[in-house]
């Protein structure tokens, strides 16, 4: 029998047809949209007189360009307001479900869709956002697309694509205390670089991922794009099924059991061959931190910045105002951001609260805690985490992408460092001239308390 990977199984079951010497028509089950990458696609269809083919397979949210304070009031910035109004209008006109600002299901697209049970194993899912790779944590094929492709899915519920190659990253062993899923993916990217995954879909396998919660798996798959892979996937298992059960859009009753039986057939067959494979040992992974301007420029928090004789590398260190050979421990930090589609789920805030409890935020630090969704926000309050944050001098803001990409007012000032749980440390990503240091929610929380980067491994029981 032909041995297949998880990716093969899901991809092959969605091929409508193949063009000779060309791409395949791939059927898309779920299409997520948001305010920034959809308006031009709606315009395109309207201008060409093409109707939306399957509006009931589209779910919309507002997240990139939304304020994280006073969401009940009209948005001050005229362009942002217009973009959100246009999304509402487009959705209304085309009968598309929209969880707009203030709705109890509103949130970052990659946080709200899984928590509503929209994301399921074995499906294909797209969104005009590169971090759509997040949903692969469920064993779905999920990837980011451009606006032209958003228009294609609007028009036909399909995309024309060449099947990517397959890659497997295996990490076996048991993670050390204080090593979080974010550290695992930052470690992998630091080893493989930012383009090792280009042209590939990546499956994460091994006991580290098997032992991980769904939220941890989402953090890992989320950053697949940072090593160039369009998508990341993890085989669905009991952890996956338990997470999905009972959510708003999850299959119910007998239908659920039927689906589970199907989902159990999806994991990669033993002996299936990947185009490329890498293996790492959990023992070698420690809390990570980035020092440069791409996510591959990461080190263990206690290591020194490496030396490289390369103009782009030097330009990067120059931007960060760091020197080769120096450590980041004890660097004073004035900004901390806990949020983004990578790390804004309840487990991330539990980790932060657990560290912060009984301590105080350092006076020099401005810390933004931004939940990924209204549901996460509600849970933070319900579990008493907000009380811990309040007491320690932290401010909990309202859901959205916020300072991850600084489209709204949440911008890090020129020249300032920000220890951030987000996914990209590109130049100016968090504001013009801002310097981003990527880390886990634990390292971010510790930085906020100490006002500087510390060796977290020495502060754990």
């Amino acid at each position, binding site marked *: 029998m032909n041995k297949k990977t998880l990716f093969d199984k899901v991809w092959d*079951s*969605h091929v*409508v*047809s193949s063009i000779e*010497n*060309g*791409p395949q*028509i791939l*059927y898309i089950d779920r299409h997520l949209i948001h305010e*920034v*990458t959809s*308006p*031009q696609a709606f315009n395109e269809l309207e201008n*060409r007189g*093409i109707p939306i*083919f399957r509006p009931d397979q589209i779910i919309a949210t507002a997240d*990139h*360009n939304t304020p994280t304070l006073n969401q009940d009031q009209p948005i001050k*910035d005229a*362009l942002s307001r*217009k*973009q959100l109004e246009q999304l509402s209008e487009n959705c209304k006109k085309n009968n598309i479900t929209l969880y707009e600002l203030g709705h109890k299901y509103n949130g970052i697209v990659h946080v709200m869709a899984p928590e509503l049970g929209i994301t399921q194993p074995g*499906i294909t899912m797209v969104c*005009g*956002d*590169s971090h759509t790779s997040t949903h692969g944590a469920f064993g779905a094929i999920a990837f*980011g*697309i*451009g*606006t*032209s*492709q958003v228009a*294609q899915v609007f*028009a*036909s*519920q*399909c*995309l*024309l694509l*060449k099947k990517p190659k397959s890659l497997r990253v295996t990490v076996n062993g048991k993670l050390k205390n204080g090593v979080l899923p974010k550290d695992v993916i930052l470690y992998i990217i630091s080893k493989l670089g*930012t*383009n090792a995954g*280009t042209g590939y879909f990546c499956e994460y396998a091994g006991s580290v991922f098997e032992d991980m919660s769904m939220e941890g798996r989402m953090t890992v798959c989320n950053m697949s794009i940072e090593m*160039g892979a*369009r998508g990341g996937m993890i085989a669905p298992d009991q952890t996956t099924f338990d997470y999905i059960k009972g959510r708003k859009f999850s299959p119910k009753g007998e239908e659920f059991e039927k689906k589970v039986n*199907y989902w159990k057939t999806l994991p990669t067959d033993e002996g299936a061959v990947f185009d490329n494979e890498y293996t790492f040992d959990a023992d070698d992974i420690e809390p990570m931190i980035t020092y440069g301007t*791409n996510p591959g420029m990461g080190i263990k928090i206690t290591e020194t910045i490496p030396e490289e004789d390369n*103009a*782009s590398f030097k330009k990067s260190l120059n931007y960060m105002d760091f020197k080769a050979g120096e450590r980041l421990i004890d660097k004073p930090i004035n900004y901390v951001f806990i949020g983004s589609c990578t790390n804004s789920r309840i487990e991330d805030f539990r980790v932060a609260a657990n560290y912060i409890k009984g301590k105080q935020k350092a006076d020099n630090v401005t810390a933004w805690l931004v939940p990924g969704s209204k549901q996460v926000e509600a849970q933070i309050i319900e579990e008493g985490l907000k009380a811990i944050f309040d007491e320690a001098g932290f401010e909990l803001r309202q859901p959205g992408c916020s300072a991850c*990409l*600084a*489209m709204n007012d949440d911008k890090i000032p*020129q020249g300032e460092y920000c220890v951030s749980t987000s996914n*990209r440390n*590109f*130049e*100016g*990503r968090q504001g*013009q*001239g801002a310097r981003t240091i990527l880390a886990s929610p634990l390292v971010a929380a510790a930085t906020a308390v100490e006002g500087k980067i510390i060796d977290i491994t020495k502060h754990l029981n």
Partner: protein
Amino acid sequence: MEKFTTLRSTAIPLNIENVDTDQIIPARFLKATDKKGFGGNVFRDWRFNEDGSVNTDFVLNNSQFYGSILVAGNNFGCGSSREHAAWAIMGYGFKVVVSSFFADIFKGNALNNGLLPVQISEQFLSDLFDEIESNPQTVVKVNLEDQVISVEDKNLSERFEIDAYKKTCLINGYDDIDYLINNKELIEAFEAQKTY
């Protein structure tokens, strides 16, 4: 979509690796709801200093260099899926981007807009940078039909790969929507017999 067959132009050398889409068009300019006007903000934070003055060190501000071909370092277009990056590059007047490696989503976005990504070897890229940087009048020719990029009056050329379907689309100015809509019956038949 505009058709693309051949282009003969001087080129601008952007000798930087891992140029990400946040550099090509920073997020604060993504609030527009149409495709126009992004060209003015392409590479905004490299072209201009914080105080709004022109950064004379940046190659796009060096009047020696001009043309509709952008030659860039390895892994061009990494990062976000924003198609605004392709619109911004085209809006500025580029018709071709040359690099030794392109990020997936950017490459697709470029092709979907008639902006040709030409992927060449590291060696050819290095030679190309040398030629353009030493003589800004260097003319680069891109022939899509033959899939060849060459430097005029020099013995320097290389064949580049492009998906056959995408090549046909570019040469004829077709886009994927036309193709998909013409296959609606197939898509409906697929929906009726889905097995998952």
